């Protein structure tokens, strides 16, 4: 059994160390993307004309191959985790910005008018009314961004030792060891499924106020959004 998870000598960690690194390299960028996307999206909601150009920019950034990012970033951040995570954070914006904008815009006009009429200022209204009601759409966006990020981390292999499960896949192919290839591919898939499941649980916890039927719809919308 021990042999199953044995790592080749060029991987400097045990298997679960590699998995943990993979998870960190995938999710920190999504978190950073969320922190950037929240204010950007709010700006897009307030200034409607800003939304189309912002969408355009995020889409163009998403189209830049990660290899090109690496070439540019290596001059600044070297062969580090950061060089892998910065492009991933940028990619997450293409999903997160529209998810938040649509979520915030889906708040009914009556609800907003009622909040204003009760004396909510703009900040209080955003934090206490718009964001909570947008939570299902935002979490749906996070699910797509996280799963995509988990699969993308592997390209970090290109700059040396930063691809986590991607490096394991590479080693497996070099040494012709199917076991390592399976460990990498199945490990990535299981990681993606677990993170997705965790976000579903999170959504159920934060939205006890949603009717059953609507939950599915929020996700379908976000997936369609991401597929566009």
């Amino acid at each position: 059994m021990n042999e199953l998870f044995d790592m080749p000598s060029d991987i400097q960690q045990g298997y679960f160390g590699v998995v943990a690194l993979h998870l960190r390299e995938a999710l920190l960028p999504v978190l950073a993307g969320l922190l950037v996307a929240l204010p950007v999206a709010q700006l897009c909601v307030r200034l409607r004309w800003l939304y189309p150009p912002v969408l355009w920019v995020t889409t163009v950034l998403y189209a830049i191959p990660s290899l090109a990012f690496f070439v540019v970033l290596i001059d600044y951040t070297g062969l580090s985790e950061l060089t892998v995570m910065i492009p991933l954070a940028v990619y997450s914006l293409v999903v997160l910005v529209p998810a938040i904008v649509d979520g915030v815009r889906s708040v009914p006009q009556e609800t907003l008018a009622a909040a204003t009429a009760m004396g909510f200022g703009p900040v209080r209204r955003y934090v206490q009314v718009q964001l909570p009601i947008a939570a299902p759409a935002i979490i749906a966006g996070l699910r797509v961004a996280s799963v995509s990020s988990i699969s993308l981390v592997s390209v970090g292999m290109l700059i040396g030792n930063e691809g986590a499960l991607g490096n394991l896949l590479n080693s497996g192919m070099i040494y012709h060891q199917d076991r390592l290839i399976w460990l990498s591919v199945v490990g990535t898939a299981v990681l993606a499924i677990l993170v997705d499941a965790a976000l579903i649980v999170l959504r159920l916890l934060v939205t006890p106020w949603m009717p059953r039927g609507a939950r599915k719809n929020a996700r379908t919308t976000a997936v369609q959004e991401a597929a566009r």
Partner: protein
Amino acid sequence: MARAGSDGQTRRAFGVLIRIDSVTKRYPDGTVAVDRLSLEIPDRSITVLVGPSGCGKTTTLRMINRMVEPSEGRILLDDVDIMQQPVNTLRRSMGYVIQNAGLFQHRTIVDNIATVPRMLGWGKDKARARARELMERVGLDASLAKRYPYQLSGGQQQRVGVARALAADPPVLLMDEPFSAVDPVVRKGLQDELLRIQDELDKTIVFVTHDIDEAVKLGTMVAVMRTGGRLAQFAPPAELLSHPADAFVEDFLGADRGIRRLSFFPSAGLELLTAPIVAVDATAEQIAARDTTDVPYLLVTDLDGKPLGWSEPRELTAGSIAVDQLLPYGRPFVAGTESLRAALDCAVLSPTGWAVAVDGEGRAAGVVSQQTIGEAIRGAHAERRADGTAEKAQKVAR
């Protein structure tokens, strides 16, 4: 103006609470939503703004809590310009009810209602206790407190909306087409509930609707507005129906304003005939002894005196009363408390042409013919004309 407490002596002394002084709202594209509108909204009563869509009624309402800022003119609340206090302080002193309720879907019913008290710094327990008290006041079951808005019907949500607006006990209530999105039966229930609540709380309510029937039913004063944001007429509903200011108002009131106006005439003066009433166990001799010269029918009642139906006298004299052969008597009206409109409606619906009056317990109090009701209507009109100011007559329950 100091606001008196809720002691019975002063509460009905209407003053002017909100004074809209030559207010215009012009949008940057040149559209004029409200045009030099002046209105004095009386204290502790319901003022209805009514008119077709695009007449500026909602804009007017929203200028009172500064959700829309006037381009010209000013609005005074208790003789103080509303621009003189911080906007959110002003808004928290005015309850606001909107179409479709606009509840916070992510908060429970009790927390929705507690919103404004919480913002005003009340403790959580005190605010929730207040919210539960209001749920009872607006007729919501306490078991709904922990539910979320999606679990409630439209009518229940609208009750929550009213409770939420009342939570911090504001002197003013602004209501923007609050009952437009619910079905007619629920709407009637909500209207009755609002009148009942207003009876207890004596708020200054400004109510926007496009439904003239709703305006006439709820309003102490009704402001009819026309497209372009101009005031067409500002009057109590009875005066509106009897003396529409111009063709626009007359048209807006609809074809049956004459009938609707009867709602403001009490039925108390109607002379009721009791001679045609017989109990179901009356003997042939008792029936024969009745004077049937005025009424060709007899109203048969059960042993409690509640009406069963009409019968022709000769059928009765033939022997015992066959209950299943009686003619239906339609919907009776409550003598005294209901209006001439109810009495007339009753007579029109009755197959015999005679209306059945009942007392508060539903026992037959007498019968009255269409002709008698017609005379009463003519009499009431004559009285109004002689009286001049009588248009301010209290509304009669319908």
